[in-house]
């Protein structure tokens, strides 16, 4: 038994050996691997191995700044990640910079580092326009849909325990499924990130049948993720993002992805820049979600 533990320990140690300088790795290999999502509000595929989205545009700009800094042409490779594997893939060096939609929280900060927050998500309630639901108080005794594998499930649970409001939860396997639960009447409300609600409503059959109501249930900073303990790379990424905020490029990207028609279908999400994001841009920081909750 003891011997086999050493073998296990040795295997784990091999995985650790490559905690190195990302900038040097990029310079030496001439390539960088960007982690992307298949289907997320900030990063998604339009087929054919092409990935687009707000965060991908941000990362592309960051990488072109790093290219200038290194004085060498670098090739970007795309690696699709899921919410289950994104952290291990960043840790083990498969992905150098993850440009999906990862919430920066204290638990994750033990494993990875985050760039300064580029986007602040607000968890909201979507409901049928004629439902009479206007805030979380009105949800007493109602059925609420949300998506398995998201932080919204935990947010709801916390609200339920804290306020004593009693509601029934149903879980969709993805956002489209959760929206279908609301659309088909199996659920009275759908609690999720505001951008996801806006996108689902915008692309539904009758967008006027739905509305987003009530208070902000939780605020989550979303940021670009990279390996921990690599200050040179983090500084390069942060500086590039701060420059984009200052020059107004970031606001232009918001306009491009959240107010103008977006590929592939040309739908408009119609999500105005929210106050929390404005504040994050005014004072760039990499504070985790827990810091936002304290306010």
């Amino acid at each position, binding site marked *: 038994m003891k011997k086999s*533990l050493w073998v296990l320990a040795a295997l*784990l140690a091999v995985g650790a050996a490559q905690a190195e300088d990302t900038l040097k790795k990029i310079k030496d290999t001439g390539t960088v691997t960007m982690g992307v999502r298949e289907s997320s509000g900030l990063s998604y595929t339009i087929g054919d191995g092409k990935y687009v989205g707000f965060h991908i545009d941000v990362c592309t700009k960051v990488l072109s700044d790093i290219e200038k800094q290194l004085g060498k042409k670098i090739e970007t490779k795309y690696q699709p990640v899921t919410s*289950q594997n994104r952290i291990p893939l960043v840790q083990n060096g498969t992905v150098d910079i993850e440009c999906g939609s990862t919430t920066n929280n204290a638990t994750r900060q033990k*494993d990875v580092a985050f760039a300064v927050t580029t986007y602040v998500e607000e968890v909201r309630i979507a409901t049928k326009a004629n439902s009479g639901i206007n805030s979380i108080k009105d949800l007493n005794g109602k059925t609420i849909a949300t998506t398995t594998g998201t932080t919204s499930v*935990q947010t709801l649970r916390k609200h339920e325990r804290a306020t004593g409001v009693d509601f029934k939860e*149903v*879980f969709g396997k993805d956002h489209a*499924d959760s929206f*279908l639960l609301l659309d088909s009447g199996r659920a009275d409300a759908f609690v999720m990130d505001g951008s996801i609600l806006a996108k689902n409503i915008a692309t539904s059959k009758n967008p006027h049948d739905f509305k987003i109501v009530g208070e902000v249930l939780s605020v989550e900073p979303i940021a670009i993720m990279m390996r921990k303990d690599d200050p040179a790379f983090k500084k390069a990424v942060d500086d590039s993002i701060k420059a984009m905020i200052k020059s107004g490029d970031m606001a232009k990207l918001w306009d491009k992805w959240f107010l103008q028609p977006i590929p592939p279908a040309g739908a408009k999400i119609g999500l105005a820049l929210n106050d929390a994001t404005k504040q994050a841009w005014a004072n760039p920081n990499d504070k985790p979600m827990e810091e936002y909750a304290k306010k």
Partner: protein
Amino acid sequence: MGRWRGGGSLPRAISYAANKNEESGVSNWDWAVFCKDTASGEVVASCFARGRDITYLQWMLSAWGWTLSVALLALIVALIIGSLVGVLRTTPSKWLVLFGNAWTELFRNIPLLVQIFLWYHVLPSIFLSLRGIPSYVLVAFALGFFTSARISEQVKAGIQSLARGQRYAGLAVGLTLPQTYRYVLLPMAFRIIIPPLTSESMNIIKNSSVAFAVSIAELTMFAMQAQEETSRGIEIYLAVTGLYFISAFAINRIAHAIENRVRVPGMIGGK
């Protein structure tokens, strides 16, 4: 940070191995995640919270209960309907055979996940009365019907593997067709197909993981949700994998015991 206490040697051994690597930068394994409260994220000393609060361990055990309930309910549906359809497919009546074949092909040629969605989203929008039925019942029927197609195939094969003379002998001594099945054919056929039925019963435990798609808080949903909340995917998935293995293996042992118990010396499969 509180470590897993009552867990015996495996968690401790793994923490030990992981601690060895802490300096070298490998993320540490943390089995205490199961003792955390699901709302506050604080570690509960006994791993079992009281009142309205629950820990991840309690949640996982309840998820295990859902997995077993859905699977067993589906297994009952599958065995009853599968046997019935399998028998129909070996009767002399052309229409009964046609019905049995149609049933089998319908349910085994549509992917399971698609069937679950048909039951949950499509049928209730056509037959409004289905809306009142709890989703676990719908899933048990969906999973049960899917598996019944496979079981009917095995029952049919079991009956056809018997010598034709058995059926004729039964009818010749004056038994009716149902009596021939009841007293001559099925007792033999079922003994022969216990091994494939065992596989099917184990599969149903694993296939029950699709129930997460229609909002049943079973093990797969627990794994997806809890790993997102705790960022401790490896520990969560290992524990869930262990529970699936234990459940399927328990079915295997029970079936093995049944097989030994009903064995008839001198027959196929006997000693």
